[in-house]
């Protein structure tokens, strides 16, 4: 559903033709698109710059320790070894950390979408009221506060509130995502006509019902986008869990993996194996949702 001038032009030609002449044969409307090979090649070359670092990470993860430190990053693993993965698995207690991280991230995504979407709706529909307008600016301004300013007080406050655990991290992740998510949602909401809600109201629906049954489903494309950003911010976050979570048995994956990042350790195969194990779910999630996001974006945008 992207912009495809070629096909569009075809349609126009067909209609013009229809105005005064016999219609063109049907097959002209199904003429195969001409692809731009030069464009494809250029883009493909650019894509290589993305794949090279990924390739290095992948091959190193499957090398033996001896081969990993031999300085030849581009060589293929020989012998092929899963030692790195085994050791990373054990050293980081992978299953537990993975589960915790997944729960935190999932909750962050859900919480962000829910809270930010309703708040944005309220703001967008009451723009002429000071409280709502100022709330928007207030939420946005917080995007610019550097994290170190907040870090230590947040540590103390979460400690006091009994939130020095993954739940506290989830809560903070959601709050940190609010600014950007509200920005995105409000921008998107401007393209949803008031008439829809008004006709629902005429039919007797309350604002609550109108929102959940009508607006929220329409927000799906932006929810997907907000969700992806929230997912990435939460999944890869190291700073906050390392500061907020007290109990080491409840730590998230990035923190647990940080033992590989000290200056004194060069277990490249183990550390890259660990990074891969953390990266893989994120990539998988992304692969599944990106289709949805793209489709949603196109459907949502080209309408009206």
């Amino acid at each position, binding site marked *: 559903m992207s912009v495809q001038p070629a096909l569009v032009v075809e349609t126009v030609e067909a209609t013009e033709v229809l105005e005064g002449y016999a219609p063109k044969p049907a097959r002209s409307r199904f003429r195969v698109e001409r692809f731009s090979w030069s464009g494809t090649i250029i883009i493909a070359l650019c894509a290589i710059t993305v794949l090279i670092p990924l390739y290095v990470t992948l091959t190193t993860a499957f090398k033996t320790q*001896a081969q990993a430190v031999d*300085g030849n990053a581009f060589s293929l693993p020989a012998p092929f070894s899963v030692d790195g993965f085994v050791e990373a698995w054990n050293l980081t207690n992978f299953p537990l950390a993975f589960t915790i991280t997944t729960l935190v991230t999932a909750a962050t995504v859900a919480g962000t979408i829910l809270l930010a979407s309703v708040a944005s709706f309220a703001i967008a529909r009451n723009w002429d009221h000071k409280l709502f307008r100022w709330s928007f600016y207030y939420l946005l301004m917080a995007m610019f506060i550097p994290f170190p300013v907040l870090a230590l007080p947040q540590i103390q406050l979460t400690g006091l509130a009994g939130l020095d655990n993954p739940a506290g991290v989830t809560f903070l992740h959601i709050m940190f995502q609010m600014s950007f998510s509200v920005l995105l949602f409000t921008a998107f909401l401007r393209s949803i006509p008031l008439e829809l809600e008004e006709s629902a109201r005429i039919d007797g629906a309350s604002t609550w019902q109108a929102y959940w049954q009508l607006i929220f489903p329409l927000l799906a494309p932006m929810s997907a986008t907000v969700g992806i950003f929230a997912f990435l911010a939460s999944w890869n976050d190291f700073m906050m869990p390392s500061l907020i979570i007290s109990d080491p048995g409840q730590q998230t994956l990035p923190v647990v993996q940080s033992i590989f990042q000290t200056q004194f350790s060069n277990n490249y195969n183990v550390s890259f194996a660990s990074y891969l194990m953390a990266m893989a779910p994120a990539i998988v999630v992304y692969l599944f949702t990106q289709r949805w996001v793209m489709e949603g974006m196109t459907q949502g945008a080209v309408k009206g």
Partner: protein
Amino acid sequence: MEGDIDVPSPDRSFRRRAAAVLALALIGSTLGACAGAGGPEQVRFLLSKPEAIPYFRELIAEYNDSQNEVEVVLDTASNLQAGFLRGNPPDLGLLNYNLEMARFMERGALSDLGDMPEADRILPEVQDLVDQYATYPGRTSVLPYSVMAASVIYNKEIFEANDLEVPTTADELVEVCEALTDAGVTPFYGTYKDPWTVAQGWFDYTVAGMVDVEAFYDQMRELGTEVGPDSEVSFQKTFAEPVTLMQQLSDACTNADAPSKGYGDGNLAFAQGEAAMYLQGPWAFGEIAKTSPDLELGTFPLPMTNNPDDLKVRVNIDLAAWIPEASDHKEAARQFLSYLFQQDVMDEYNAAQLGYGTTTEAAPVTDPRIVGMKEYYDDAKFYQGPSQEIPLTIPAANYMQGVVLGNDVETTLSIMDADWARLALRQ
């Protein structure tokens, strides 16, 4: 109307609810009591040295199996500052002891361990090292567990091949350097890409070879804001000579691609025999062994003067034990500490990690790679790295990296003085 609405009478439903709550409370408290009374006390043990983690994991498993009162849980990644701030730091820490840790100690965050029998077994000179950073009056807050001694690592085979002896004076060092260069061998392998290697090796060894580090920093701390070009001691005054020599040495006697080589590259290259000497600590031996396990290596202190009596080795307290005041499990933590400090446990650890023992009956070091430093250690001819006494907020390692890359020595040192004075002003 009766019969229309089938609602339990308020009386009955209240009683039902109350019963449910009571039952839950009973169950809950029983469970809690079970957990409290029957279960072992949990001790959170912080250890973040990656090489040591597998070793201590086993040790902890053994300890937990051997008794039922204390259960030790290994923590490898907690943020200390966060823990102290919240009031729930680990119960027992076994960490590198440095300026940053000293900050906690200075403010009384660590409990007194002086009454423990283990405290009496520590070598007095090693305990002094702890005090060099800061003290908390009346307490022995930290018990050193393992000391790493570092100096110049040299490749014995290359030295032999070129008929060279270990230099003990600065002049001999220059001769060795020249001889190696003439023979086409890189004398030192530099890894300037990683600033910490410059600080730990080049800066620390050269400066401490000529300067009394402890006395210098004592005076610097006293002078505080008055440090400058005219003060009695200062970086630009006291360190000018050694740092200039450091720059000369790094210019003349290292590999040309040092600026783009890091710690990992250095280990690899040295293991492959690309240079004769390497300014690194014993932690590098493990890495080097990954490539060349049979390489014959030895160590000697870097001579900076022509007086062999000035030779000293760089030490740092690689692992030291402490128990925070805020811990609720001090007794249990102490039990585990005693277990860790058993002599054979300490000896085994130090032997495996190439560390030096901190106790009076510590087993003597025998590994050929580090035995060259033994006499200096035994005579307490050691120092803690000058770079370690500079708070991290003054990027000394980066400054030194600039120097070996060619920056002007005087300018850099005067910048350090200005930074020091400014820091003293706001603290």
